[in-house]
């Protein structure tokens, strides 16, 4: 019964995993795996001398940093806020509204943003009719990374609350009672009961995000790369795509992808052992 799944995983996960050997080959599709020439680490030295690669890496890290700073706290704050809403019908309604954008495709999200913030969008029409110079939001390379982060918040902040809401709901209610009897106000209850109760989940999500440091919204970036140019919008995944599939530098692109995969794996392991050191559970147990 497991056979179909095993065949699919074998064909499209395990064998391609071995297919990464072309990172050490001058791969020519016509010659295939067998007859393409082995070139050792040449692809990697090409990669490291390519300014576009470093640019892509730098952009990726900048976007990750922005997301950690500006995206990561939003679902936590939103969850705490939603939890404070006591009327369950209202709470459920707001929840189902804020979960919705998560299910829309990036094409739709970008179209919506264009309609709101584009040159002829709602915001700029408003500014123009009030005599203010319109803002270039959708195609400004300088603020592109902020735009990406903001789009991410709109799409996924609501969805991200689910896991934190579950964490808050799991906090023992007696802790709140005890804290209140001891004279703790709302603020101190938040700092000394709610936040510590959420900590394991927060640390877990942080580890998962750190492990994914080199992955930043591939579809989202690809859709908008033309608007701001590769200088601001090239990330590792788009670099792999354009070098490999579009330009046919299979070896270099695979080398970049392989490097990314290995570094990501190391990052998860490092982040996890760090969490263990800090006395948290982390993703897996030792």
């Amino acid at each position, binding site marked *: 019964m497991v056979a179909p799944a095993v065949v699919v995983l074998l064909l499209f996960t395990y064998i391609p995993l071995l297919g990464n050997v072309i990172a050490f080959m001058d791969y020519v599709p016509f010659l295939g795996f067998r007859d393409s020439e082995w070139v050792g680490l040449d692809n990697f030295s090409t990669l490291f001398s390519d300014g576009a690669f470093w640019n892509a890496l730098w952009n990726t890290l900048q976007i990750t940093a922005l997301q950690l700073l500006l995206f990561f706290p939003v679902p936590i704050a939103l969850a705490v806020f939603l939890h404070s809403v006591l009327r369950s019908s209202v709470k459920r309604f707001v929840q189902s509204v804020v979960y919705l954008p998560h299910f829309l495709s990036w094409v739709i999200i970008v179209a919506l943003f264009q309609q709101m913030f584009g040159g002829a969008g709602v915001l700029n029409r408003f500014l123009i009719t009030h005599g203010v110079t319109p803002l270039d939001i959708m195609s400004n390379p300088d603020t592109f990374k902020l735009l990406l982060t903001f789009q991410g918040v*709109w799409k996924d902040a*609501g969805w991200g609350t689910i896991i934190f809401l579950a964490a808050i709901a799991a906090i023992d209610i007696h802790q709140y009672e005890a804290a209140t009897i001891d004279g703790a106000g709302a603020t101190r209850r938040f700092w000394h009961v709610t936040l510590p109760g959420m900590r394991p989940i927060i640390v877990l999500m942080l580890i998962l995000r750190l492990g994914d440091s080199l992955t930043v919204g591939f579809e989202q970036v690809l859709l908008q790369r033309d608007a701001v140019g590769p200088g601001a919008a090239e990330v590792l995944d788009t670099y792999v795509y354009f070098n490999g599939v579009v330009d046919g530098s299979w070896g270099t692109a695979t080398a970049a992808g392989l490097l990314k995969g290995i570094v990501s794996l190391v990052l998860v392991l490092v982040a996890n052992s760090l969490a263990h050191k800090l006395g948290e559970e982390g993703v897996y147990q030792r």
Partner: protein
Amino acid sequence: MTAVDRPAWLGKPNPGATALRGVALVLICLVVIFPFVVVVSTSLATQADIDANGGYVVWPASLSFDAYQQIFNGTQVTRSILISLGITTVGTAFSLVCTVLAAYGLSRKGSLFQRGLLTFVLVTLLFGPGMIPVYLMVKNLGMLNTYWALIIPGAVSAFNVVIIRGFIQGIPGELFDAARIDGASEWRVLGAIVLPLSRAAIAVVGLFLAVGYWNNYFGPLLYLNDSSMWPLQLLMRSFVLQGNVSSAAQHIPGTVPPPQQAIQMALVVIATLPILCAYPFLTKHMSKGMLTGAVKG
């Protein structure tokens, strides 16, 4: 019955704070809903309406369904919708069959190679093979420019297998024992016990799969060269984001062509509609099915 469940330790509500909270809730909802209002209104607006507002309409002065009529009059959009529906249906079915079979097979402790196969599936959670090797594999199998390239490579996600497997393991073991003592085959057990009892979990996973197939645009971009094979998301990218709108609609002779923005927004509405239809089911099962899966990690 009062809907407010206020624990005693929370004390009396502060009217100012309650009002502030209400304002914040309304604002949050508006931030999500307002763009949709603009999109739907613009798709229903007339050229005069759009011109008067300069590109968008918040509330149309008069309704016009021309944009929708012209979109469905042309063959390209209609075809891409059918293609998207086809990929979504076949993909979800294929994916579910593989996933449920694997989940059941891996749920029985002590069966042949169970531990090894479980590890085999779980390891794929840790790392993927990367875009290029998968692309070359698809190419070498002759699947480029076929819809199978969009369906088979990503059909099995270890995460989904784990969720359904967890659900199956929650079914009381006595049921399985009783069925096997009565001589039921594994397939019979699957059909008579596993499927009916894990319907909720399978439904949730299926809905998420369907949303994924419907929303996928990079897969078609990567694997389909022929633009006549494009599903809706890719067509929408071309018409709405890249502005190649002219071919989206077949102009009906003798009528005023609907505004370009209306056609673009009508496409967005059409692409959103199936998600909105599935949404009540998603939210209904979400708290039950996904939450347990998500918290377990």
